[in-house]
């Protein structure tokens, strides 16, 4: 028995079946107070169909899935390298081409063109709204957080705070808070953009200056706390934020310059184009930043803070800068959301929101702008798809279970993310060879 358990294949089989048992419980029925164990027993004993072919009980399809998983897993372990090599060979030429500047520009222009015509191809109102609220805004947030996490190597778990600050600033400037509006006039949300960016940036500096002396885990904990504080403020400062009732009506963007009059109304497409313009602007700015003197300082700090100091880099200054830039991006995203959705509520600004953005960055590839954009688009589209056409038994709250599972798989098979940044790819490779400490990049710990 013992020797049987020591057999690698047997252990792999047990693991595969255990994973499927967890999936069965996750997707199974819920218990109730009268029958607390029904959630477990029902997950296996309940009547179910075997992939629509015949009637059976639930454990049968899951046993089948477990065996399939085991076979694929074993196959991957024995033949995976061949597959990887094959894929690498196929992609070698395109990858080399993608390193060249004209090709990169071409791809960028092509993607912008696709983004421009997309709302004319996808006309389903659900998807048009999702493209603004759930995709474009999240892309913006993800590239902002990427500056903090990917470029500077600082783990920020309270990113939602700056998003909330941007949204509430918009409400304030447009007169949707119980508080009298700034300068006493109800301004257009367009004016909220610079104000929100500046306020979010200031919040980033105020939080960053004292806390960025901390390293790794400590910084993560402080930012976590800051995110919670902002949410609780929004909830409790009834006279300022409107409390849990949310704000009054925040107006849409409107343009009124001379003869040009335009109101961003209830339809999402104009918002889509407005956000797209800013996404492209932010992406261009961050690409330039990555290869600037500031970007190199961030890389140096991320790799070795003591060494960075020894060549004359002030770590605190550049960390605060990363924090402020990330914060201002989130602040801007807050303006778009506030104006587009008309109301904001404290309950939208939760820890799980911060985690969600972090997942986009890690999934896409920390430090890789293209990867993060792609990651954000894929995950957000996926989760919207699940919301739009949910499979049987899917609850919206299940999303995080799947995101968690996805992240675990990524860490095993593609730890540097979907499209790793060139430097990140090296870092992972080096740390696997026992050099450097890229595995500690997320915690930012220096030995």
């Amino acid at each position, binding site marked *: 028995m013992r020797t049987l358990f020591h057999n690698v294949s047997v252990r792999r089989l047990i693991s595969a079946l255990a994973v499927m048992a967890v999936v069965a419980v996750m997707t199974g029925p819920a218990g109730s107070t009268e029958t607390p164990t029904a959630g477990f027993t029902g997950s296996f004993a309940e009547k179910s169909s075997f992939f629509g072919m015949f009637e059976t009980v639930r454990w049968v399809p899951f046993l089948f899935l477990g065996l399939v998983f085991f076979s694929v897993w074993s196959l991957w372990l024995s033949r995976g390298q061949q597959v990887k090599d094959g894929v690498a060979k196929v992609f070698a030429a395109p990858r080399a081409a993608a390193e060249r500047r004209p090709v990169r520009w071409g791809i960028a222009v092509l993607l912008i063109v696709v983004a421009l015509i997309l709302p004319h191809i996808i006309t389903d109102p659900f998807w048009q709204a999702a493209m603004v609220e759930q995709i474009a805004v999240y892309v913006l947030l993800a590239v902002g957080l990427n500056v903090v996490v990917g470029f500077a190597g600082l783990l920020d778990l309270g990113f939602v705070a700056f998003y909330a600050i941007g949204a509430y600033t918009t409400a304030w400037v447009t007169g949707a808070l119980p508080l009298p509006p700034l300068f006493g006039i109800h301004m257009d949300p367009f004016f909220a953009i610079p104000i929100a960016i500046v306020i979010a940036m200031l919040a980033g500096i105020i939080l960053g200056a004292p806390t960025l002396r901390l390293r790794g885990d400590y910084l993560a904990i402080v930012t976590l706390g800051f995110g919670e504080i902002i949410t609780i403020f929004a909830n409790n400062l009834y006279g300022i934020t409107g409390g849990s009732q949310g704000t009054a009506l925040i107006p849409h963007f409107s343009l009124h310059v001379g003869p040009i009059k335009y109101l961003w109304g209830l339809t999402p497409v104009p918002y889509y184009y407005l956000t797209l313009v800013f996404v492209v602007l932010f992406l261009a700015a961050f690409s330039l930043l990555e290869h600037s*003197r500031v970007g*190199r*300082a961030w*890389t*140096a700090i991320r*790799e*070795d803070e*003591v*060494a*960075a*100091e*020894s*060549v*004359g*880099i*002030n*770590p605190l200054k550049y960390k605060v800068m990363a924090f402020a830039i990330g914060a201002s991006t989130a602040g801007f995203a807050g303006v778009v959301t506030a104006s587009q959705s008309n109301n904001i509520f404290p309950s939208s600004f939760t820890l799980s929101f911060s985690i969600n953005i972090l997942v986009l960055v890690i999934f896409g590839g920390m430090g890789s702008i293209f990867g993060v954009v792609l990651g954000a688009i894929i995950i957000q589209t996926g989760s919207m798809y699940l919301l739009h056409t949910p499979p049987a038994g899917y609850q919206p709250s299940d999303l995080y279970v799947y995101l968690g599972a996805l992240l675990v798989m990524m860490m095993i098979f593609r730890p540097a993310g979907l499209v790793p940044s060139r*430097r990140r790819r*090296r*870092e992972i490779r*080096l740390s696997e060879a026992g*050099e*450097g400490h*890229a595995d500690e990049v997320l915690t930012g710990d220096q030995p």
Partner: protein
Amino acid sequence: MLQVNDAVVRYGAITALHGITFEVQKGEIVTLLGANGAGKSTTLRMLSGLHAPATGSIVFEGHDISQVKAHKFMELGIAHVPEGRRIFPQMTVEENLEMGAFTRKGSFSDDMERMYTTFPILKERRKQLGGNLSGGEQQMLAIGRALMGNPRLLLLDEPSMGLAPMIIETIFRIIDEIRDSGTTVFVVEQNAAQALRIADRGYVMENGRIVFGDKASNLLHDERVRAVYLGETVEGD
């Protein structure tokens, strides 16, 4: 050029340096010797701004720099090669050298060429990652990176640590060349024999105090130094 006057360094309640005084003259190589835990590394941490002295002063070219932060030192003209080399492992050799010139404005390609002449191996490995270099190559890279800031004073923390004897010899020969080209060098070392052979003067530390200092040639033949730090190593000379 550099004077340290009665500097005291404390880590919380523990006093690591009990008032040390020494100086480095322009154009010299000065070495600080001592056993493990004598306070050598603390001294260098203090000299590079990583840990400010509680009392006492550090005067560099007439300015008190005892409270100046570490990242300002490069601009002052003091470059620090940290203990354990600490090159940027995921940057190429070239990028590492460029980082050394971070505080400088204008072109520094002449200096890059100069580094490649001083360290030909770095030119060969120009496009390789710092983390893939051998220990000796990393030490050369760390020194090269520090020199890219055009310092007037170079601080070296245990440059021989963990290196093979032949490599150590090369490193010390290069340190000698660096001094000849006009940069003053202060080097903290455990390898007393090697350090004293190139140094002009040396100080010996024990328990957070400088117990004595003298010309390097005198120290090499000093009974106390021979007994404690050199042991067998000078017998062959």
